[in-house]
């Protein structure tokens, strides 16, 4: 055990059992997986990405590059989890990843022996011969070796949620600066959200031995937490990472609601929050960087600040054996704190190796001033370091080494709007630049203002400033007594040498790789990154990018700011893909729209089909029908011979009213609408302004100033939007009003020779005889004893047919009434399949023909585009490319009636070579016509109107089919329209 006997923010009374690579250990509440592993003397926790080098815990936060594990098991297996932020719970199961065989004896460690062959960019230079070997041999091998953790390949069993939060001030980070900011704003009465990625508030205060008001800092943190919790206007959100800064003060955050529990139970695992903050405080602290030196990647070598955190917060020494010693390598004062803290905990310290010749001494330890580390030993854990002071080099046995290279302000979120951070020669780091997200104020260490006293004051001042900007007054709060620790350092970036010195641990990028990139002219930062993969690992270079820049700057003879920075992009740390989808998956992926007769159809055993967001009845199987065709054929024949009813509510309905309604419709329809008589309906065609056919439907005139426009189901929203565009943006001078009434009216098609007979039984007193209510008539009337309704004599099927609309809530009842009243007529409900067959038989265009690529002429509707008036698309429809298009909608009938024709087949002249040059058109829609007892199809054919009677080929090479089809009129049924008018 290497747990210290006292101290730490852990609950020593409670034991938590957990396992790592199958071995059982115990830890305590308050531990992370990393602290618990270290407390159990486990130093080796993973393997690096490329060379499979043995690795140990390097950091104490989300910047961890090495300690990545597969957490949990079964479908909850979670690859690439940073042990340093995984909160320990009882029963936690974790495994190391990215090795073949055991962690200790990883077979792929052989890569390390071949490291000289695997230098930066090597794969761009080889694996090219023989050509076919890439996909078959090289790439699969590379892919197997690459990657990190493994997905279970099973659906994620947990649930997720998303929500919106609104606040005056979002405080990101609950360290000294964040707590001061939150309390200042909280006491001022502002709406505050305080988000902290850790499960405990306090930030570095928990990891250092700074005292506040002369007492342990954690006591002050507790006091702050209690006061903030007591304020109704403050929302405390621990375990919440603000991962992205988006436009207009919107921040993305993930709350890990149940990741610290064995299973979420009835809670969601995580929640995605979209936080709209009038102002935000970035108090995200700073991340320590290291100093590359030879063989600096062994387990046992970690950031000096992390070492302090483990000792102070978790009461863990970094040593495997209590008899070992710890050394600290630093380029500034900060590293000395680690030696002092460890000594205070009774951990043996070899000394501090400080690169500065004039390094100050802060305590009673051995000081190697002007010294560097030039080598290390220890295969699975550090055993010795070589210290070089001047020309003298000597080996010292140590069990752990802390490395302190300075701190990088956490500028990530401040740079999400592509504002570049700015180099500060004083703190030797990039600070948030002036072009950060509007309303985001960096404070404390994130703004380069390290030291507890600085951070507290800056946090408070940041909150006052932020609230002042939105007109809220906040008063300074009394801050605890605190000090700023000495923090001078020198610009020392790496120890030169011949051996490998790691810069980016996870991706195995060394100083040599950077030198090679330089040599090969991959010198711009972006080229360097992409050539070496530096900073592209799961830690996004949080501990490595600045060191790499410094090395490249040295090689090019430029300064660090001249060398540049890389972009910071969301997310700040990895965010589970599931939570970004929120709960909108599975059945909730898209809202379902149900028709007014949905439950009626469902009760009758209808099969449903997705039509955009709608669920529509596809067909109504009857007992004994074993194939969908049986049902559909029966429904089609019933309509042609008797009467069928079908819910057509999904078609768009737009109510158009106003003195200028007729004029308005004249302008938006290609054909004339203003001349339509009251009580009549006209078929209408709309074009897009670019001249192509857009949508078709009917337009009914109920009164001089009142029309009802119908649209296709697919374009209902689009047509309404387009009409509103013309009404509001182009012709606001017209007196016309629009409203979409698609959901307000249930509309039932009643079709077939007996449809009038059926309707007469439900209509109250209106005369709907052929003479009184002819084809294309419409009127408002009442049915079923006073229910207001609208009746349209229109037909999609080609039969005598009507559409009857009633307020949506009566749709279900109307369907029942029609079934009841029509029982003796054999009334048959039909679904979308039969609807489709009926319209193909009649030659009506639908979505496959009105696909946005076709013209009125192609549809055989060229004459509908009125030349007497201007209308949307009219001018553009006359351009040569459209006017000269000779393809026409035709009917196609296989020469042998029982041979199916597939929609999507291409059309060719008989015996023509089937290639793109000879392509004559394509089949748009096809079906079996029970009425004609033949397969039939519609299609667009070159010069189609002049080719009736010709036998051509419908070719479907994709499925090896070729069918001889005769070109016929698209109107297979009743071409003269006599049935419509009877």
């Amino acid at each position, binding site marked *: 055990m290497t747990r210290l006997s006292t101290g730490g923010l852990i609950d020593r009374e409670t034991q938590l059992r957990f396992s790592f690579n199958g071995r059982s250990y115990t830890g305590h509440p308050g531990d992370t997986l990393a602290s618990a592993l270290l407390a159990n003397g486990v130093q080796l926790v993973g393997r690096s990405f490329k060379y499979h080098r043995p690795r140990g815990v390097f950091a104490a936060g989300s910047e961890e590059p090495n300690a990545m594990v597969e957490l949990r098991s079964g479908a909850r297996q979670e690859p690439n989890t940073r042990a340093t932020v995984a909160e320990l719970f009882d029963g936690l199961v974790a495994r190391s990843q990215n090795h073949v065989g055991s962690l200790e004896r990883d077979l792929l460690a052989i890569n390390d022996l071949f490291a000289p062959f695997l230098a930066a960019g090597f*794969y761009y230079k080889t694996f090219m011969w023989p050509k076919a070997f890439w996909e078959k041999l090289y790439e699969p091998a590379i892919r197997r070796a690459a990657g990190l953790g493994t*997905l279970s390949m099973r659906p*994620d069993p947990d649930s997720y949620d998303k929500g919106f939060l609104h606040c005056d001030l979002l405080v990101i980070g609950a360290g000294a600066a964040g707590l001061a900011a939150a309390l200042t704003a909280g006491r001022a009465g502002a709406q505050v959200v305080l988000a902290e990625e850790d499960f405990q508030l306090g930030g570095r205060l928990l990891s250092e031995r700074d005292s506040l008001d002369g007492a342990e800092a954690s006591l002050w943190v507790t006091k702050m937490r209690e006061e903030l919790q007591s304020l109704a206007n403050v929302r405390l959100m621990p375990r919440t990472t603000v991962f992205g800064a988006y436009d207009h003060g919107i921040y993305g955050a993930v709350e890990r609601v149940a990741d610290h529990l064995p299973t979420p139970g009835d809670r969601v695992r995580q929640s995605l929050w979209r936080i709209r903050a009038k102002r935000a405080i970035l108090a995200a602290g700073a991340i320590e960087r290291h100093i590359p030196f030879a063989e600096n990647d062994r387990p046992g070598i970690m950031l000096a600040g992390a070492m302090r955190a483990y000792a102070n917060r978790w009461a863990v020494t970094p040593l495997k054996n209590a008899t070992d010693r710890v050394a600290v390598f630093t380029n500034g004062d900060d590293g000395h704190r680690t030696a002092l803290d460890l000594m205070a905990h009774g951990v043996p310290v070899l000394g501090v190796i400080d690169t500065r010749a004039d390094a100050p001494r802060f305590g009673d330890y051995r000081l190697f001033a002007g010294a560097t580390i030039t080598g290390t030993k220890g295969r699975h854990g550090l055993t010795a370091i070589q210290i070089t002071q001047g020309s003298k080099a000597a080996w010292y046995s140590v069990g752990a080494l802390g490395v302190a290279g300075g701190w990088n302000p956490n500028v990530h979120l401040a740079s999400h709007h592509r504002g570049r951070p700015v180099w500060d020669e004083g703190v030797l780091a990039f600070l948030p630049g002036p072009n950060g997200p509007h309303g985001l104020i960096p404070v404390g260490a994130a703004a380069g203002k390290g030291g507890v006293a600085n951070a507290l004051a800056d946090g408070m001042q940041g909150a006052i400033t932020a609230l002042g900007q939105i007109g809220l007054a906040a008063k300074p709060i009394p801050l605890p007594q605190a000090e700023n620790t000495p923090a001078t350092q020198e610009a020392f970036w790496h120890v030169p040498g011949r051996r490998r010195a790691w810069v980016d641990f996870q991706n195995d990028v060394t100083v040599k790789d950077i030198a090679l990139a330089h040599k090969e002219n991959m010198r711009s930062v972006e080229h360097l990154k992409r050539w070496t993969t530096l900073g592209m690992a799961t830690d996004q270079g949080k501990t490595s990018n600045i060191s790499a820049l410094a090395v490249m700057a040295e090689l090019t003879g430029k300064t660090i700011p001249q060398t540049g920075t890389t972009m910071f992009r969301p997310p700040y740390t*990895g965010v589970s893909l599931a939570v970004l989808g929120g709960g*909108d998956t599975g059945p909730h992926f898209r809202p379902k729209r149900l028709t007014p007769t949905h439950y009626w159809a469902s009760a009758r055993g209808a099969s449903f089909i997705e039509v955009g967001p709608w669920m529509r009845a596809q067909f109504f199987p009857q007992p004994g029908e074993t194939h969908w065709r049986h049902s559909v054929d029966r429904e089609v024949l019933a309509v042609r011979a008797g009467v069928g009813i079908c819910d057509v509510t999904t078609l768009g309905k737009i109510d158009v009213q106003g003195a200028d309604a007729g004029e308005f419709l004249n302008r938006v329809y290609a054909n004339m609408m203003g001349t339509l008589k009251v009580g009549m309906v006209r078929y209408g065609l709309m074009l897009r302004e670019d001249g192509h056919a857009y949508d078709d439907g009917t337009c009914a005139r109920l009164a001089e100033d009142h029309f009802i426009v119908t649209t296709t189901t697919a374009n209902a929203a689009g047509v309404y939007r387009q009409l509103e565009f013309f009404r509001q943006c182009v012709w606001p001078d017209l007196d016309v009003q629009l409203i979409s009434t698609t959901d307000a009216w249930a509309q039932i098609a009643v079709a077939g020779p007996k449809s009038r007979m059926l309707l007469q039984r439900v209509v109250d007193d209106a005369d709907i005889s052929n003479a009184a209510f002819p084809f294309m008539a419409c009127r408002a009337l009442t049915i079923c004893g006073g229910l207001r309704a609208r009746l349209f004599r229109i037909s999609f099927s080609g039969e005598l047919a009507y559409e009857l609309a009633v307020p949506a809530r009566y749709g279900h009842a109307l369907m029942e009434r029609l079934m009841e009243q029509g029982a003796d007529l054999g009334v048959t409900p039909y679904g979308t399949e039969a609807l489709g067959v009926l319209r193909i038989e009649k030659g009506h265009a639908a979505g496959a023909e009105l696909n946005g690529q076709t013209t009125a002429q192609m549809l055989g509707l060229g004459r509908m585009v009125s030349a007497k008036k201007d209308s949307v698309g009219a001018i553009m429809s006359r351009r040569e490319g459209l006017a000269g298009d000779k393809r026409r909608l035709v009917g196609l009938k296989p020469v042998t009636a029982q041979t199916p024709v597939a*929609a999507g087949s291409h059309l060719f002249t008989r015996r023509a070579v089937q290639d793109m040059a000879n392509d004559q058109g394509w089949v748009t829609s096809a079906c079996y016509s029970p009425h004609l007892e033949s397969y039939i199809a519609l299609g667009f054919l070159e010069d189609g109107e002049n080719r009736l009677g010709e036998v051509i080929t419908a070719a479907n090479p994709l499925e090896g089919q070729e069918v001889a089809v005769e070109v016929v009129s698209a109107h297979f049924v009743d071409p003269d329209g006599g049935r419509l008018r009877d």
Partner: protein
Amino acid sequence: MKFSGFKVVKEALTGHAGWKPLWRDPDPQPAYDIVIVGGGGHGLATAFYLASVFREQRVAVLEKGWLGSGNIGRNTTIIRSNYLLPGNEPFYEFSMKLWESLEQETNFNSMVSQRGIINLIHTDAQRDAYRRRGNAMLLAGADARLLDREALRKLVPFLNYDNPRFPIKGGLMQARAGTARHDGVAWGYARGADQRGVDIIQNCEVTGFRIENGKVLGVDTSRGFIGAAKVGVAVAGNSSRVMSMAGMRLPIESHVLQAFVSEGLKPTIPGVITFGAGHFYVSQSDKGGLVFGGDIDGYNSYAQRGNLPVVEDVLEGGMALMPMIGRARLLRSWGGVMDMSMDGSPIIDRTDIDGLYFNGGWCYGGFKATPASGYAFAHLLSTDTPHPTATAYRFDRFARGYVIDEKGVGAQPNLH
């Protein structure tokens, strides 16, 4: 220097002392025969083919930042030739064929990986549309397969076939499609062009065109005037800005498209898969990251970053389609500027200004077109005639009514 396995071994054994810069950093000459504006994928490919195929001797590429910093540096790496319309399909198939021999031509491993693409089918209407498209592909000499549910299940068993909202009914597959390592493509072309004498001039921003009597004489740049008999512009993401310096307005709007990569994972997804009932497409990089994207944000933008609603929309689709990715983590997201044309198809054409040529409007499909776009643009620049597969990509197709509108949504760029 020729790259090969032998060379890698030799250098490894001799301390990597012999590697040379992948390309020179020449100072600009006073004048060139052909100046390419834009050192992205298309510009570099154009330069490569000008030098290698059309034997042009005096060619320069001017890049305002670092070479490959355009959309070639930030895309989802998919290559495919599964188009419907005759104006497009032969061109993209030509591109596919160039991809297939790219590495041997450039002597650079761009990791062209033909692992296949599958477009999923969720409705009967979609199947009909894909059948029409698959047949068009076959007729143009490309490959295509229509998969039923069971055949699909064998290839990609991990999809949510019985998604309660939009069940999967099949797919259209192009086996020769796949991915390529995007930066490697830029670098391969750059190195190949440089070796053939092309001057690639980085950090050289074009600030204006010098035009007299309707003829271009050269370009003003941040590094002085550079004369040119012909100037070819290939500046995806900046097309309108650059061409406005020549007084032109384009049938183009610039939009932001976000793309995403997950943390590295062991092999999970074999090829490229696109959802047919939402906005989501995904592949896995050789390094192990799931590379995915969806719809453009939908508003004009040059910001190279997008917003949360699209992030959510993409992952809703991803989770609906393959709920087994839920516990992987998003590593990075980014935004690229897409020059969305008015019909969703590109332009490779002369302009009304003598000697000024334009290549652009690739929407979010420019990466896969890189080889053919470069080849066709080089053809046009060198011979003054369009390449046979690119004859439809003219400026005047809009005015004359010959748009190439694969989606059938008309002149609304954010819907293409």
